[in-house]
């Protein structure tokens, strides 16, 4: 109870960084994605866009819930979030990335700021950078460190971790992040609809594969997202927002 009150006071007193700020412009360009769709070559053209420099924090999400009470833990409908939704509140660290949020909640949060979730290709493009290079993926040592993504040992999990080349932080942090088109990250073997007897397959699609089997960190991330339903929540799955460049 005491912890809850302190938490509430901290939330009220905290200077709430407006989520509409804090976006970083990304020029985009040609990009070799690790993910291949339908046997393509994984070559993407990422259009210019903007992405939030930080994952959405507990404090920021709390502000959203206050102005959109239908997203409160005790009011959210079952279609939009599972029972784990915001299960860690109110003991969560207000400055930490928000977790235990469904795709629907992340989608609604970003829309409320006239933003959207980043697409996978956009996310992957920004995440390919280290502090000095736009694409550090050929660096075996750097790539090895990305194996810790989604764990407390992740390279961006420690406080004071550098922003990457684009000025974006936490892409390789202790939490995974939703992407807007996460539902496309699924292969033929998907059986999510099996309990209904539905195969839920794309027409004409042969599923996805990986351009670079050494890119284990990406494979792990995609495998995790592809196992999610849009109402699913996880203790180490959060999100950040993006915006198209007009």
């Amino acid at each position, binding site marked *: 109870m005491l912890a809850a009150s302190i938490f509430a006071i901290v939330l009220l007193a905290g200077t709430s960084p*407006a989520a*509409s700020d804090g976006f970083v412009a990304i020029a985009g360009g040609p990009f070799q994605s690790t993910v291949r*769709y*339908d046997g393509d070559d994984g070559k993407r053209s990422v259009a210019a866009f903007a992405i939030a420099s930080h994952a959405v924090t507990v404090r920021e999400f709390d*502000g959203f819930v206050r*102005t*959109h009470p239908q997203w409160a833990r005790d009011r959210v*409908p*079952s*279609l*939009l979030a599972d029972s784990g939704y915001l299960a860690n509140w109110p003991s969560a660290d207000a400055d930490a990335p928000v977790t235990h949020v469904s*795709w*629907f909640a992340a*989608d*609604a949060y970003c*829309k*409320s*700021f006239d933003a*959207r979730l980043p697409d996978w290709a956009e996310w992957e493009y920004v995440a390919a950078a280290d502090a000095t290079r736009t694409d550090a993926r050929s660096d075996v040592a750097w790539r090895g460190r990305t194996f810790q993504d989604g764990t407390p040992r992740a390279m961006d999990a420690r406080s004071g971790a550098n922003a990457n080349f684009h000025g974006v932080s936490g892409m390789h942090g202790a939490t995974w992040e939703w992407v*807007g*088109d996460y*539902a*496309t990250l*699924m292969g033929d073997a998907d059986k999510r*609809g099996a309990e*209904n007897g*539905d*195969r*839920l*397959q*794309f*027409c*004409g*699609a042969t599923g996805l594969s990986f351009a670079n089997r050494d890119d284990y960190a990406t494979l792990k991330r995609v495998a995790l997202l592809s196992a999610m339903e*849009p109402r699913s929540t996880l203790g180490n799955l959060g999100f950040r927002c993006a915006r198209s460049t007009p």
Partner: protein
Amino acid sequence: MKVLLRSVVVIAVSLVASMSATAAPPALPGDSVYQVEASVVDQEGRAYAWQALRGRPQVVSMFYAHCHLMCPLIIASGKSLQNSLDPHQRDGLGFVSISLDPARDTPAALLDVAQVHRLDDHWRLLRPRDADVRTLAAALGIRYRAQPDGTFNHTSVLILLDRDGRIVARSEVTDLTPDPRFTATVREYLTGASASGSD
């Protein structure tokens, strides 16, 4: 400030909405697909909230007008289902096809589809707001992906919703006619729904 203004507007709009209703509608079930907020425009250019479809059973699908293979199948399959119903059942069932391609599927393009397929006034072809396509697809369990050539890969299904937007049944479209089991389910559901009273 902007956020505050927005929430004031939202509150004002919902107040007006709730006042204009003569009686408060019963709470929407938690698993209703109308729990997601989305704005749509139909083939006649009428704009409304996705939730406005609540009130009668609907058979819902997602498609796009420039699709030459699967999408005509989806519509043909829905029409075939509709034609297999008796007149009373037909009156009680709406058909909703939501575009995956709002950039190209203008109301005029959707009206064209409706005319080419001779769809009656039980059909609504909807163009969602860009940002709402994914949200609607997620609520309906429909997956899609834009291809570089402007086509879409997508799940081809007909979904039966009850009057409150709960999913009763879904059926993959593979042919010009729907799966007979799905047709049977729709008939059974409509018979049961009319037998259980006219609330």
